[in-house]
């Protein structure tokens, strides 16, 4: 493991300061998708970026934004490499990122130790959680833990659609991955 130089740290911070194209309240650093910046020579840099979901279309916009920011900082050549391993998980979202998601009206993912979906069961007419979840998904609007699942899939691959049974507001939940 080569130690990052001061300039590499600065470049990594700059790349991480780019807002997420889909959730502009979050930076890429808070989302946990920028992994490393490596300097080759004085003005050539390689950045490691990991996708949240394999098919996430935002990755291309992220790469372009990172390139632009680093070029503006004097880098002549910027290469953004997509890395898959280790696989990104929602646990990589920083505490600050979680707070911002909640303020934006999106319930943040629960922290988990095991990967995979939280087991759910389905009622006869609509999806409803019956399982004993140790951590309920709280409504980002009123804070109530009494919420129900409407759909496992929502406006983007990373979100599920839920509804608050207390204030009746529907909301997106950044689902655990």
């Amino acid at each position, binding site marked *: 493991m080569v130690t990052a130089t001061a300039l590499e740290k600065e470049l990594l911070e700059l790349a991480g300061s780019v807002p997420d194209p889909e959730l502009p309240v979050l930076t890429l650093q808070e989302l946990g998708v920028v992994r490393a910046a490596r300097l080759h020579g004085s003005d050539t840099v390689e950045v490691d970026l990991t*996708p949240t*979901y*394999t*098919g*996430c*279309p935002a990755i291309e916009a992220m790469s372009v934004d990172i390139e632009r920011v680093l070029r503006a900082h004097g880098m002549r050549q910027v290469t953004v490499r*997509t*890395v*898959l*391993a*280790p*696989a*990104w*998980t929602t646990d990589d979202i920083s505490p600050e990122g979680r707070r911002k998601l909640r303020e934006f009206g999106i319930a943040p993912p629960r922290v988990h130790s095991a*990967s*995979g*979906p939280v*087991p*759910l*069961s*389905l009622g*006869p007419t609509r*999806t409803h959680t019956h399982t004993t979840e140790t951590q309920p998904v709280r409504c980002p609007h009123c804070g109530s833990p009494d919420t129900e699942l*409407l*759909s*496992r*899939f*929502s*406006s*983007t*691959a990373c979100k599920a*659609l839920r509804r608050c049974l207390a204030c009746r507001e529907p909301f997106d939940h950044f*689902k655990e*991955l």
Partner: protein
Amino acid sequence: MTATGPATVPVTAALALGDDALVLSHRLGEWAGHAPVLEEEVALANIALDLLGQARILLSLAGDEDELAYLREERAFRNLQLVEQPNGDFAHTIARQLYFSTYQQLLYAELAAGDGPFAPLAAKAVKEVLYHRDHAEQWTLRLGDGTETSHERMRSACEALWKFTGEMFQPVEGLEADWARLEAHWQESVTDVLDRATIPLPEGPRTGAWSAGAGRQGLHTEPFGRMLAEMQHLHRSHPGASW
């Protein structure tokens, strides 16, 4: 993509896995504008997007993703016949999803545990596939154990696609997997879901002369040609076009 370059990737295996993902992604995309409810429209499109992401990475390991997707003839595709089957009614789509996502989840989990060229992608994708499988399972239970009509449609869909499931466990050159064990786990898992959905396990043969299954060798069923014609039409009519 990773430290492993294309030179060490077994092309046959990359095409088999990549074509499964690409073809099923296209089939699920056909639901756009036709799904029974808005939530399902979004769910099926999201699953299709995950699969398309897998396909892009896998096909890029084997060559140029666009050339492979848009310029190959039917006989050069290595996908399972199961994934090319038409959407049918919603129950058929769910049965196809149940059979395939159970298989994909087990296979990817095994690949992810190894250190072969597909391990990084498999480790990433297996978590997404768990959601696909969960979606299919919940719908199988809901339709199977639902009304008389939904039960009958779900039963008939599971029955109709059964003959395409044996092919999944034919060894693929370049994939290190214990196929017999995968098949046993798949049977166990699918049987458990169908039991709970009150659907009898289909009885027909899954392999042999009277069952389907030569997609991995490039032999496909009739609907696949029509699907490819639609999928490749734009690229072939306007080579190099972009927007």
